[in-house]
């Protein structure tokens, strides 16, 4: 199984779970960065609306991917 393209050519639930985990890692990283930025802006008292909106979108995306990962049953 290729490490960076898990489950290529297979439709198994394990392969799907691994692909979703990879996506979760990428989205999670960007969500964490957005969280740090939002917290810093809030603490400083700077406008943080846009940053918070980006964070909200990323959190929803992480939740959706996490749910899909859980539903694979692996």
């Amino acid at each position, binding site marked *: 199984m*290729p*490490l*960076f393209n*898990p489950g290529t050519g297979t439709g198994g639930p394990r392969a799907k779970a*691994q*692909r979703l*985990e*990879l*996506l*979760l*890692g*990428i*989205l*999670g*990283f*960007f969500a964490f*960065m957005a969280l740090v930025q939002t917290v*810093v802006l809030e603490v400083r008292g700077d406008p943080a609306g846009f940053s918070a909106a980006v964070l909200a979108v990323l959190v929803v995306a992480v939740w959706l991917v996490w749910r899909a990962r859980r539903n694979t049953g692996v």
Partner: protein
Amino acid sequence: MSTQALPATTAAANTETHQYRHKSQRWQNARGYLGLALLIIWGLAPFYWMVVTAFRDVDYTFDTTPWPTHVTMQNFQAAFSTSTGNHFGRALVNSVIIGISTTTIAMLVGVFAAYALARLDFPGKFLILGAILGASMFPGVALVSPLFQLFSNIGWLNGANYQALIIPNISFVLPLTVYTLTAFFSEMPWELEESARMDGCTQGQAFRKIMLPLAAPGLFTTAILAFISSWNEYLLSQQFSTNITQPVTVAIAQFTGALPRQEPYTTVMAAGTIVTVPLIIMVLLFQRAIVSGLTAGGVKG
């Protein structure tokens, strides 16, 4: 009669087909070579122009003759001269210090991370791989202002603080190192490690004594790629370096001419040539190791 004519006709047809195939093959080869020649010209033309301008007299900077004319070595002397406030020699040493430090730290951390990711099966492995991929996607320019503020608060932006250049560099080089080495380690024969374990080695000893020496081409390739990446870094160095710590990329961009408002193009080209040549020599010397290291892990046996 028709039975005698048939083999002759078939032979003629075979010869024709053979000739056609031969011609077609030659045409295909010619097209291949033509494509390669175009690619080489496309890739090397800027370097060729840089070298030609580096050797050209400053009065003929904008001469468009495609071959070397008015050849002089003065530009190389000017590049190292400190009379106009340039410190190219010191910048070269700085680049070597930053490049070697970044490569060493990234390799030390990257080897263990890559080995664990390739060898161990633990929950969330792909999550970590995704996070590393995310880190490598992160735009460097977004880090400049927060890091600038942080480093100025802790006093890293004055004097000879090389860590202000090395630490951010590692964050960009490390994902590259981990990815290249993970691909390399994942294709290695694990039976060797199992044999070492059966002979009484601990997992650490098996890694150190068996797997690491076998991974040498991959480690070497990754180290060269990491060094080149660090050597060419400009964005963060331009913000975080001081007059003492600035690397060559920044020093060349800040070259000043002998006269006010004079852009010293030929000196810049000479400095560019000096900076590029060590990399070319290094890659040419270790070409075989680099190619074997890059292709290892590309095909599953």
